[in-house]
């Protein structure tokens, strides 16, 4: 329990620290990248669907898998598109 709390605190600190100096122009890509990352709920969705017992659970789970997948793939792709402006400039 306390371990999970510790993890929570540390992760929160890292989350703050890591974005604390981001420049304005990266706000949107960063938001979008973070958005893709929370699509990790896909892992949760797979796990519950994989262990589902009732039909309701399966349906809910599969819906969750579908939605989470949209979140993940769409999120990463759209972020990459936004970041195209940063590629290819020397230095």
């Amino acid at each position, binding site marked *: 329990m306390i371990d999970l709390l510790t993890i929570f605190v540390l992760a929160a600190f890292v989350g703050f620290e890591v974005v604390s100096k981001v420049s304005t122009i990266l*706000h949107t890509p960063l938001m979008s990248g973070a958005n893709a990352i929370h699509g990790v709920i896909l892992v949760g969705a797979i796990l519950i669907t994989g262990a589902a017992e009732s039909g309701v659970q399966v349906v809910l789970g599969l819906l969750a898998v579908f939605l989470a997948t949209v979140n993940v793939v769409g999120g990463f792709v759209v972020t990459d598109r936004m970041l195209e402006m940063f590629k290819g400039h020397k230095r």
Partner: protein
Amino acid sequence: MSVQLAYLVAALCFLLALKGLSTPRFARAGNLLGAAGMALAVVTAFLHGAVHNGLWILLAIVLGTVVGVPAARSVKMTAIPQMVALFNGVGGAAAALVALAEFHDGGELLFRVATVLTVLIGAVSFSGSLVTFAKLQEIMTTRPVVLPAGRVLSIGIVVVSLGLAVAVLATSSTALLVALTVAGLLLGIAFVLPVGGADVPIAISLLNAFTGLAVAASGYVLANTLLIVAGTLVGASGTLLTRMMAQAMGRPLANILFGAFTATVAQAHSEEQRTVRSGTVEDVAILLGYAHSIVIVPGYGLAVAQAQHAARELVSLLEGRGITVSYGIHPVAGRMPGHMNVLLAEADVPYEQLKELDDVNPGMTSMDVALVVGANDVVNPGARDEPASPIYGMPIFDVDRARAVVFMKRSMRPGFAGIDNELLYNTKTTMLFGDAKDSLTKLLAAVKQL
């Protein structure tokens, strides 16, 4: 054990992804690393956890990909914010669904608390995101919508939600949990409706942080460390990011979210008929730092601010990055013939960098940025386009034809000729308000940071 390790590696990838995304240089790499971490986590989960329904799960994933990738690929750059909102919403929904599916009688209190939080926050995030999408896509009005008795209504929904949450904790009733889901959906709508068009991106960012928290809570539901770490990372960074975005717009967060309820702000909104885009020093720094060619048009404001030295430094810094920079010297910039020459010579700007109208205008369309430092009349397109203008006929620098325009001035006040300048309201234009020397000095520091 190895499964857990894979998750840990994935968590580390996410962490480094966020770190990468916060510097221009590593942003793309960061995003790719995040995607790689995600692939690892998903494959691991599938191999290890898809004991039943494996094929169905695969089908759902394929379906999600088929829907998500083309949508993300084909969306117009200008429509990206609403796309992000949509993706965020479905993520929230997924979290809520996971918690709903996993809900069962009994279990520890912590489990129930986590479930309630996941469902509630996920639902808010889902419906809220859909509303922001509708606003940005202009399916509905972009203006703040304040329902009659909006405040009372909102407070009512909040109270009901809290009541339902407590009830679920106490009773473990699935029906109540479904009711809570509905309340959450209403709450999300009530939360976003009053946010005005320009502030919607901030609401999206906040909802994004919410989804992160929902995922973290679902991690407690499923006792999955990866979900906890990743969700918390997104929740924390998203919260800070939201604050920073609000700050960059110069408005306190509370004002943006709840501003529509107060009369003053509503008034300010209606007065401001023509919008002006004001950027931060960092925006402009990135605009300049990643440009290939820049023309600087100095004017009387450069002289007033005595910013010639700062300008020269910025130029040499930019040239050091391999960017082509020149000064466009207008025949009547300043208040005496040769005013700009005197200043720039004092700052030891090489004569070769000084270009005249005829040198600059033909190539203006290929300029990435035109940086207008304390000039106004000499770049006013009215002199070219509006025969009725008192300055019609004066040759100008056609900076409006450059890819982007940055104005450094202290206010929206006009220049010597006393007439308005349409270019200030152009969508290409970013205003960097403040004394030119101040702004240039800050810009210098910001470009060095890139």
